[in-house]
């Protein structure tokens, strides 16, 4: 499918048609890079050609997830015969050219550009959240900047935007690379950030310069992940959390989502792709958290609740022929939920009313757990370790007070926790392993794979299929790996035929009088990650296309799902996200319990607390929520 991008042509990837020649030899061009002859692909950019030949060309506005901009000019190189320097990131090789990546002219230009950027970059590195992880700082070091040639701005020019629960904007540190603009407009198709004004007044701003909380920002935080400097960062609650930890009257509880475990090693300089679940539990206790819970438990609970809701909706639509909002959309991703509320408010009934795992857990901690332990819920400080910037907004939604208190007090990102662990003098990778605390204990692998795109769908299928048919999912998909919904393709679609209906477990039996209507049905499902892909599905549904016939669709606001979330370590790119996803799937594979309905703690909680079963009255009060039709136009 040919993608239509909204960004200006100047910032779109260049598509060069490769000449079709018999043996493919013609699609290679011999170029000279630094007087060395190399073969490169026709149409490849100089930057990619250099990368393949182990030649480092510095970049700043370039990001592998985004289209080309060519506006920072740091990657300029000399191309023989051309009057001006050319940007390596944007220049396609279509002829046997001679390139110099480090001539005196090039080095001088790069140094000038860095000096110019530094002259407008307010602040000092040691007081910056991105210290030691800043691309501008790296460039300055690489080019041996030891003084401010063109001066240095002494006073902040812009007021910081602290309005959002999720994203903090400090435009004084902005280098106008416009990665955030391209992220927002192209990668996510939200379009909150845009370059405003021109000349010396050029800056990145929002609609009518409104604060971020007042525009249609979905809080996904993808802009943070791609900002090369500290101009964009998450709203950090760690100081308040430290205070709570240090307060002996407070019972500080933390729940940890699956994705941070698979990425937090990167904060400590390790290669992506290894999970630190056990080590993290120990580290959290050493920092001073009183108990550590596994969000996967409520992920399992989400599957039961959301799966039940789906069956009820299908029954209503297919058997009772009543008007029902189908397909049912997942509601675990708060960025996606807000996206839908803004851009497709007419579809909010399609969102599953089940809360996200974070908020389910929040409600249970201050009710079930507090009762069980005899702790006054007002003394509980509930922290959620999430890979997500939008979770900070979600826990502050006014409707998330079903326990009678704020269900979750703070959303903490992977990056922020990494910082706290370092501050506590702990080197995470060397921690001994330990388990999660009871009464929620270990969860299933189904809850774990929520972290990767397709994971919620896979978890739901494992459970719904087995509960309804009575068969084992392993009989259909080897090792219970439902591969059609895995992988990083933008939109995935699958059909699962339900050939028989087996004995339905007791917990669900009361829901509908008869189950045979499901026999012979085909469950149509889809998965999308990144709101740009979500938009495609939504537009298709609006137009009555293929996806409008789906029964259940998983949406994640962030590319790659939660493992690519806005709270995850920086940098990010598809390679890194794949490694993180692999870590999650590997861990799932190693777990004894891999299906939500086989989690004994889940069965237990329906026995003793949520006694009227999934989608019952108690669960509706604590585990379900409602949404707001926000629309695109904001007063």
């Amino acid at each position, binding site marked *: 499918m040919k993608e239509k991008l909204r960004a200006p042509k100047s910032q779109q990837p260049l598509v060069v048609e490769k000449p079709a020649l018999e043996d493919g030899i013609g699609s290679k061009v011999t170029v000279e890079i630094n007087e060395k002859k190399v073969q490169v692909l026709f149409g490849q950019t100089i930057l990619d050609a250099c990368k393949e030949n182990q030649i480092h060309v510095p970049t700043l506005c370039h990001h592998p997830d985004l289209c080309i901009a060519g506006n920072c000019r740091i990657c300029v190189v000399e191309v023989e015969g051309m009057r001006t320097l050319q940007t390596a990131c944007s220049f396609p090789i279509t002829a046997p050219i001679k390139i110099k990546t480090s001539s005196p002219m090039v080095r001088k230009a790069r140094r*000038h550009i860095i000096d110019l950027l530094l002259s407008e970059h307010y602040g000092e590195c040691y007081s910056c959240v991105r210290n030691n992880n800043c691309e501008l700082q790296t460039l300055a070091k690489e080019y041996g900047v030891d003084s401010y040639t063109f001066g240095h701005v002494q006073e902040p020019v812009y007021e910081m935007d602290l309005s959002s629960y999720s994203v903090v904007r400090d435009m004084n540190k902005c280098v106008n690379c416009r990665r955030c603009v391209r992220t927002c407009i192209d990668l996510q198709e939200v379009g909150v950030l845009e370059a405003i004004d021109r000349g010396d007044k050029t800056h990145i701003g929002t609609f009518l310069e409104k604060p971020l909380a007042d525009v249609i920002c979905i809080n996904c935080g993808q802009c943070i992940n791609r900002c090369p400097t500290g101009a964009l960062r998450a709203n950090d609650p760690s100081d308040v959390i430290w205070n709570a930890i240090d307060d002996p009257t407070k019972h500080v509880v933390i729940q940890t989502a699956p994705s941070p475990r698979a990425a937090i090693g990167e904060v400590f300089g390790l290669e992506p792709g290894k999970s630190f679940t056990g080590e993290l539990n120990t580290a959290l206790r050493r920092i001073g958290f009183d108990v550590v819970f596994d969000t996967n438990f409520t992920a399992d609970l989400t599957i039961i609740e959301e799966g039940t809701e789906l069956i009820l909706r299908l029954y209503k639509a297919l058997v009772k022929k009543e008007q029902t909002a189908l397909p049912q959309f997942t509601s675990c991703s708060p960025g996606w939920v807000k996206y839908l509320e803004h851009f497709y408010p007419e579809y909010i009934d399609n969102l599953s009313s089940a809360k996200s795992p974070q908020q389910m857990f929040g409600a249970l901690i201050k009710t079930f757990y507090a009762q069980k332990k005899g702790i006054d819920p007002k003394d509980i400080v509930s922290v959620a370790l999430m890979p997500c910037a939008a979770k900070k907004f979600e826990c502050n939604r006014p409707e998330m007070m079903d326990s009678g208190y704020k269900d979750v007090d703070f959303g903490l990102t992977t990056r922020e926790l990494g910082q706290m662990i370092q501050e506590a003098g702990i080197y995470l990778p060397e921690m001994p392993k330990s388990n999660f605390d009871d009464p929620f204990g270990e969860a299933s692998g189904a809850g774990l794979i929520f972290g990767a795109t397709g994971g919620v769908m896979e978890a739901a299928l494992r459970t719904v299929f087995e509960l309804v048919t009575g068969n084992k999912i392993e009989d259909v998909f080897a090792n219970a790996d439902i591969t059609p919904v895995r992988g990083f393709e933008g939109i995935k679609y699958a059909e699962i035929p339900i050939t028989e209906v087996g004995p339905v477990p007791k917990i669900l039996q009361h829901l509908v009088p008869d189950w045979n209507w499901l026999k012979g049905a085909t469950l149509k499902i889809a998965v999308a990650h990144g709101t740009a892909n979500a938009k495609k599905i939504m537009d298709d549904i609006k137009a009555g296309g293929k996806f409008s016939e789906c029964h259940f669709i998983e949406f994640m606001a962030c590319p790659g799902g939660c493992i690519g979330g806005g709270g995850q370590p920086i940098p990010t790119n598809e390679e890194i996200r794949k490694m993180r996803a692999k870590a999650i799937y590997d861990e799932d594979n190693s777990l004894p319990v891999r299906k939500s309905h086989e989690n004994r703690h889940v069965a237990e909680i329906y026995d003793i607390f949520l006694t009227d079963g999934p989608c019952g009255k108690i669960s509706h009060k604590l585990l379900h929520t409602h949404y707001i039709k926000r629309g695109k136009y904001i007063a």
Partner: protein
Amino acid sequence: MKTHLENSIIKTERTGPVLFSPYKKGEAIKKTVKQKREDILFEIKDSGLKGRGGAGFPTSTKWMLTAAAKADKKFIVCNADEGEPGTFKDRVLLMEYPQLVFEGMVICGYTIGAQTGIVYLRAEYEYLLEQLENYLANMRENNFLGEGILGTDFSFDISIRLGSGAYVCGEETALIESLEGHRGEPRNRPPFPVNTGYMGYPTSVNNVETLAAVPHIITKGGSWFKKFGTDRSTGSKLFSVSGDCEKPGVYELPWGTSINELLELVGARNTKAVQVGGASGICIPKSQFDRKLGYEDIPTGGSVIIFNESRNMLHVLKNFMEFFVEESCGQCTPCRIGNIKLLEGVEMIERGEFTFKYINTLKELGKTMQVASKCGLGQSSPNSFLSILENFKDEIFHTTVINGYNGKAGK
């Protein structure tokens, strides 16, 4: 409005070798549609016509590349975003010779295979819109535009779009971005508009004056056109002359005219300096007034600003730099911040708080901007900084060092 028009340019009897020579309406179109596209291209190539916007890219090459590009749609865009300080020749052409411009577009459309022509009219020229639309309607009535022009199967029409007042939109790719409804900012090149232009289709963007020369070349021949000017700069050029002289206005002169000759023609006395090519051009001191206007020596888009002995060259420079600081599109680093630094440098000299070391650093920065900026704006904005500081260093540094230096060390 009319008085404004008449006052703004002193209108004399217009005479000139090419553009202001007699021309009968529609003649070139009639001749064109009887010829093959290759013949037209050959005629233009033979004439040696180069882009009149300032860059001087051979028009025949641009048309040939657009003609050769494979696409189901092509566009010809007339760049009437005349924004260079001190330029007003396109306004004269559009006001008094619209037939030449529009017919040039029709001929280009015929040659490159475009069905649509777009005039990107400078926002400040909105008052010309009605008059131009009327002229287009008239052309449609006479079948010089529209379906099946003059009974052939060639269909072509022209629409006019207004800019929004950004200087950078005179840069062809920024102009196209603006036409598409985006923020007016230059694109990366390659790809060039001849392959990927308006809406991704092959597009030939030509200056008003370039297009106006085309009907004359078609009717009178490329070899006739070549008779004027020099070897590498054929034909004539419109000069927008302003500043300290008796007869400012638009002059058509053959390429190769020296600055001295021009000054004499317009009645300039006690001239100290001539800024050729507008703010982004270069400043010529008295000692170099024998230099010739043309691609061989001083290429220009036609703006000539004359300064006499009473002018302070540092103020002139400051004025230019303030212009660029404001008019940079703000996209690329060298232009966005570089121009600010150059202006700050000028202000330092003005206050006498500078070191020569720092001024030299700024000159180096200017050279970087010339090679590292994304588009022509940033690449040419340091021109006046470099040429004025070089050519008038005695005046500038003498006055400031002797009269203004207060002993403070510069940055």
